[in-house]
């Protein structure tokens, strides 16, 4: 309590002080607007950046002097979040309204032209359309596989059996691995010459097996790797629901001579429903962004390009930076719309039930 009493009063708006954040914001805004209008773009960029840093510094000094230690402690996290996430997000949004290529010096404002181009011409191109349908295919297949396998694993691990704790750690490991490690592991696994899969098929009397030689095989390989990696995540969520079911409900059901499916749907399922829907949401969003495993396993060959991989290609490899940004924002829009639709339906159903 004493520290609050000792903290100095907030400085007057007009006094120049390191903790006068109101003045800092005002000055920062004025200087930024002037710099953007007068100076060339690459100089204005640094001026605006310096102003943002000044405002941030005034916040920090103010928090220190007023003893807002909570704010002070989260400030590094906020700074990192801003620099690494929010700034690039806004920056790329800005870029999507310009004609810009990262390997050229010119930059030209084109308004909504990029979006217009994407939504009219590019979408008609069979290549981009194929990328979209591939993405949808992966979303449906990987999410279905993960939900089923994850759910079954959770049912298994909800029971008590010897070595359960150690097996649980083992089953959770794929989720903690780097995607690159998983991709490399599976590319060895699927390798036609040395891969385990091909070897096993040879041992059973078959010939050398090239999984990636057909689209079905390639998709199956990617879906399997993705399901292997992310089923434990679904399992973890469902398991949390399963263990939260009070034991006495099962005992009551036993006394009431109810078991099997009816017991599952009336007692167990209501406890895991919310978590299943959460898992579905998370995994669907992730699956929409699938690119890493495709890059590692097929490099988009055999018609396995996804839309995210396409974005990486046009933005990084073809240097069409602003088009990539525009396409990213279209995808973000789709995901946001779908997510909100899903949440809306989910909420309405849980309220109606």
């Amino acid at each position, binding site marked *: 309590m004493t520290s609050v009493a000792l903290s100095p009063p907030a400085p007057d708006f007009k006094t120049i002080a390191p903790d006068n954040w109101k003045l800092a914001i005002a000055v920062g805004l004025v200087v930024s607007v002037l710099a953007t209008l007068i100076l060339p773009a690459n100089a204005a960029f640094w001026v605006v950046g310096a102003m943002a840093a000044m405002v941030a510094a005034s916040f920090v000094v103010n928090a220190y002097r007023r003893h807002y230690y909570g704010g002070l402690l989260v400030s590094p996290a906020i700074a990192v979040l801003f620099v690494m996430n929010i700034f690039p997000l806004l920056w790329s949004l800005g870029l999507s309204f310009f004609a810009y290529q990262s390997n050229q010096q010119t930059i030209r404002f084109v308004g909504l032209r990029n979006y217009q181009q994407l939504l009219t011409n590019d979408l008609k191109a069979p290549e981009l359309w194929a990328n979209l349908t591939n993405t949808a295919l992966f979303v449906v297949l990987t999410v279905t596989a993960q939900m089923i396998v994850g759910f079954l694993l959770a049912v298994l691990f909800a029971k008590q059996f010897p070595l359960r704790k150690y097996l649980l750690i083992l089953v959770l490991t794929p989720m903690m691995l780097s995607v690159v490690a998983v991709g490399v592991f599976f590319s060895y696994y699927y390798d036609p010459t040395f891969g385990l899969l091909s070897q096993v098929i040879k041992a059973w009397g078959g010939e050398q097996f090239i999984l990636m030689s057909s689209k079905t095989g390639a998709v199956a390989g990617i879906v399997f790797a993705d399901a292997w990696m992310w089923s434990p995540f679904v399992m973890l969520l469902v398991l949390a629901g399963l263990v939260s079911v009070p034991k006495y409900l099962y005992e*009551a059901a036993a006394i009431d001579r109810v078991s099997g499916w009816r017991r599952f749907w009336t*007692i167990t399922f209501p406890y895991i429903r919310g978590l299943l829907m959460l898992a579905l949401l998370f995994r669907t969003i992730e699956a929409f962004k699938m690119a890493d495993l495709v890059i590692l396993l097929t490099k988009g060959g055999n018609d396995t390009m996804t839309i995210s991989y396409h974005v990486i290609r046009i933005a990084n490899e073809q240097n069409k930076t602003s088009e990539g940004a525009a396409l990213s924002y279209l995808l973000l829009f789709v995901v946001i719309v779908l997510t909100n639709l899903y949440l809306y339906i989910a909420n309405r159903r849980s309220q109606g039930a």
Partner: protein
Amino acid sequence: MASSNNKPPAVSLDNVSKAYGRVRALKNLSFSVGEGQFFALFGPSSVGKTTTLRMISGLVIPDEGRVALHGADVTHAPIKSRGVSMVFQSFALYPHLTVYENFAYPLREAKVGSAEIDKRVKETASMLKLGHRLERKPNTLSGGEQQRVALGRSLIRRPNILLLDEPLTNLDAKLRHDMRAELKRLHRQFGMTIIYATPDELEALSMGEEIAVMRDGAVVQKGTPDELYERPIDTYVAAKIGAPHINLLQATVAENGQSLKTGFGSFALGRKLGAKAGDKVFMGVRPADLEIASPQSADLSAPVQLLEPLGDVTVVSLGEKSDNLRIVLPESRASEIKLGDRLPIKIDTHKIHVFSAADGLALR
């Protein structure tokens, strides 16, 4: 109490033991319950009442011993085959089902037609005055209503044997009183065997036709309320049964087992104890067996230490040191008494209980 007919008992437990890890919940527990009896299982919490009920229902399999229902050994029989229903202390209502579905649940897999289910649910609901709550979820009901749903759910199947695990513990005093009457009425109506576990002596005495008093996972004494009250087997049962509690005074046997010497004086017993003079014993006398007498006919006199008014009666504690003697007086008498007054007391010597100080067992 010996069963008058020769039908096998509805429930009989024979030398049953059960341990959870190192904790021995039940130790050689034996008792039997007659067909159609309202039987109370009485004892403080964690004495093994719940484990006993769970064993009868089949939720727990005993480590040793034998459980029989209607004369048939069911020790290892599945729950389904037992025809036993149970009301849990926590009610264990299905939170995501409506009251209607909670009632209907035990019938769903019993191949009962939906018209019959509907009829039975409505019957049960109106019997328990829950007709207007059928579409609600359990967590929107009051404690008393939840309790009645739990009861209805176990009654709807018309079980032969109904186990009630402290069903009234989670209710307030007024509701408890109403539900006691309700349970009695249901028992008369359906005539099933009821085993009722309770830590409340008033519930046990008022509801049980027979009572088993439990201690440390075993039955100490079984009998009708009167038997337990009149002839407690040891100090534990004597202290548990009867309110206010029995007075237990340290005493020494004198005159060749014919009288007792206590801090309040000597008392002739009018009978001969199977104990030597000088043996340490407890003298037990119920507050109701003490009365205020004229100073000439009094057996003892002692100063008033404490007055506890309970409405129409007052519990008066007499004594000077740690030894004290409680006596129950009607409010009209008690209002004349002040702390420190010496009261002349007469004891009904036929009703004095004597217990060995060594093991607490009654000496007769």
